[in-house]
């Protein structure tokens, strides 16, 4: 068994496809192709972070809450999605696919590792960053996938506006990171 895996490790196609990171251009082409497939089959552009809002709503309903009067979920479309449930929510399955796909990729490259927390500052930075990203993505009605990537690829000006301000945000964020969290 060990000899078998040692042999795979030496295989040039294993190295090319699984071990080494794909070149940026290959990644870009694959992302483009799959987002076209997504658009063509589901009639909706690819989005990631909107799903989390739905997960939150279902979780809230699970403990007896109601989001019927929330502005965010007030459209008939949003209500229909919530009523259909998580099992029938295609985007949920796509997000789960992303998580398991990423897990498979690190396992296939034998790069899986549970990382240690280095300091309490990391916890604060990660929690703060996550909250800001999540909140920002919802009030912008999209993240770097739904608003930027899907926006620009459907020739929408809003995607470019989102991109410009995301770039400014990244500069400010990096400066703050170096100043307070390093």
């Amino acid at each position: 068994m060990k000899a078998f895996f040692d042999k795979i490790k030496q295989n040039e196609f294993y190295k090319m496809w699984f071990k080494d990171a794909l070149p940026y251009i290959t990644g870009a082409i694959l992302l483009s192709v799959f987002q076209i497939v997504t658009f063509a089959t589901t009639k909706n552009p690819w989005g990631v972070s909107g799903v989390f809002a739905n997960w939150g709503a279902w979780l809230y309903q699970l403990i007896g809450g109601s989001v019927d009067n929330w502005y965010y979920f007030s459209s008939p479309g949003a209500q229909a999605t919530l009523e259909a449930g998580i099992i029938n929510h295609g985007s949920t399955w796509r997000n789960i696919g992303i998580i398991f796909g990423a897990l498979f990729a690190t396992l296939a490259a034998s790069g899986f590792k549970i990382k240690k927390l280095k300091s309490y500052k990391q916890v604060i930075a990660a929690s703060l960053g996550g909250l800001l990203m999540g909140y920002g993505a919802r009030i912008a009605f999209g993240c770097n996938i739904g608003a930027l990537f899907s926006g620009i690829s459907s020739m929408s000006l809003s995607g470019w506006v989102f991109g410009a301000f995301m770039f400014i945000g990244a500069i400010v964020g990096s400066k703050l990171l170096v100043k307070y969290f390093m």
Partner: protein
Amino acid sequence: MSKEVVLDCFGEACPVPLVKAEKALEKLEINDILIVQIDHSCAMKNVPEWARKQGHNVEIEEIDDGEWEVIIEKVK
């Protein structure tokens, strides 16, 4: 006599390893070696890329599952 400095960046996410490596290399003399220890695969791409662009000699060693050492020899 050239010296060897180990920079522990285990558990750090991008862009922290790159920023730390930049700062550490600045303090070194020519021919010194900087060993950046990383476990974040995207730093595996951007740290060597940056060092090679600067013209330094770079080698990558996989020391364990998901752990790498980027060995940078400062040449200028």
